[in-house]
């Protein structure tokens, strides 16, 4: 038999027919599969949270709080990477004796990736960043 979680992921409206032990199983399956926050987002997208009983809704809300924290952490990290890359662009421009680095020089600036650690980071022959 198809696991309940899989049925709900395929057809979210299936939750309308669940009794409380059914919700219990669904929440446990979703938590073990690390999909509780995804289930919450899916049910929200389909407007099904209002129909859900209070117990499972509480668990979905708990997972939502963790997902929000993760999202904030990712946004923060992306902002840091963006700031670091902007710095690399400016450094590359400065090294070429240009005061300000506009878009033209951005093509030539390379982030400081060590090639031997990340063989896929530089793939164009002859233009690889060389280890000194």
């Amino acid at each position, binding site marked *: 038999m198809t696991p309940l979680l899989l049925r709900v992921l395929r057809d979210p409206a299936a939750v309308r027919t669940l*009794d*409380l*032990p059914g*919700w*219990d199983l669904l929440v*446990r399956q979703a*938590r*073990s599969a690390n999909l509780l926050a995804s289930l919450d987002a899916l049910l929200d997208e389909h407007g099904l949270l209002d129909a859900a*009983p209070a*117990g*499972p809704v*509480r*668990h979905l*809300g*708990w997972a939502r*709080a*963790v997902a*929000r*924290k993760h999202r*904030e952490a990712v946004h923060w990290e992306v902002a840091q990477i963006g700031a670091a890359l902007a710095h690399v662009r400016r450094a590359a421009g400065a090294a070429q004796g240009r005061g300000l680095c506009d878009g033209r020089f951005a093509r030539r600036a390379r982030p400081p990736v060590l090639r031997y650690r990340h063989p896929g980071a530089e793939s164009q022959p002859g233009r690889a960043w060389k280890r000194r």
Partner: protein
Amino acid sequence: VKVGDLQPAQLRARLRGDGLLLRTGPYAFRIRSRLAGVADGIARMYADFPLLDGRGFVDFHVQVDSPWNAHRLFRPQVRFLVDGVTPFLPLPLAQAYPMLEWGLNWCVSAHANDHLIVHAAVIEKGGRAAILPAPPGSGKSTLCAALVQRGWRLLSDELTMIRLADRRVTPLPRPVSLKNQSIAVIRDFEPGVVGNRPVADTIKGTVAHIRPPLDSVRRADETCPVGWIVFPQYEPGAATRLSPLPRSRGFMRVADNAFNYSLLGAAGFEALADVVDAAQCYDFTYSQLDEAIAAFDALAAAEVPA
């Protein structure tokens, strides 16, 4: 129907079979175990707790058992599982009951993110709660155990749950955990208290639990606002001293003791700020339980500040 209505054999059968379904505060637990120590502990500690039927939603499905590993031959162990996951390393078998209590605490503190959860005892009188956050060894649980034997309502001895929605404390009445010397202190203080057999050599030393007062269990659905935040410190021979603490310091010290403060981010900060704004903060030094109780009763009797 309450846990205490079950015969010992019925209780053991449920624990071995589909599980014992009980409610503590807002949460339903299904507890399974084949261990006699767990059944005895539950019978003594949870007699007044409501049993649930199997038709509802269960928040946490937990199991305490002895794994079939090599240890079983010469030094049997116990492990705690929640939905098949083991959040802790196994412990010696003799620690089965304390492990159940720690595990139940973990279930709540690791999940219930609609609350700011602080590692603190919390008690209520006159409709206001007193939060007692404190590091281990400060005498928090001893003080809490004594106060709830003298008219204060136990909300929780370990997890203060501040509901983000309305900044009120959600009760989670469960057995009060006592350590080392405080076990004898509370026995002398209130000989009628129901405790279970102390378990030696745990990571926290010797541990025993005492049954929560009936009134606290019955009123587990009554939330209340926070009136006071008191940081207790037991000091042998010290005079009883209650000194006001600036709210800023109180805020930081509560935040330090919160489990999910950083996870909640701005929501946690704002909830805690509201709670601290509306509460009075104190440092409290004590050595005599009777004097300590008088000091707390005086706090509760005072007018609510405008």
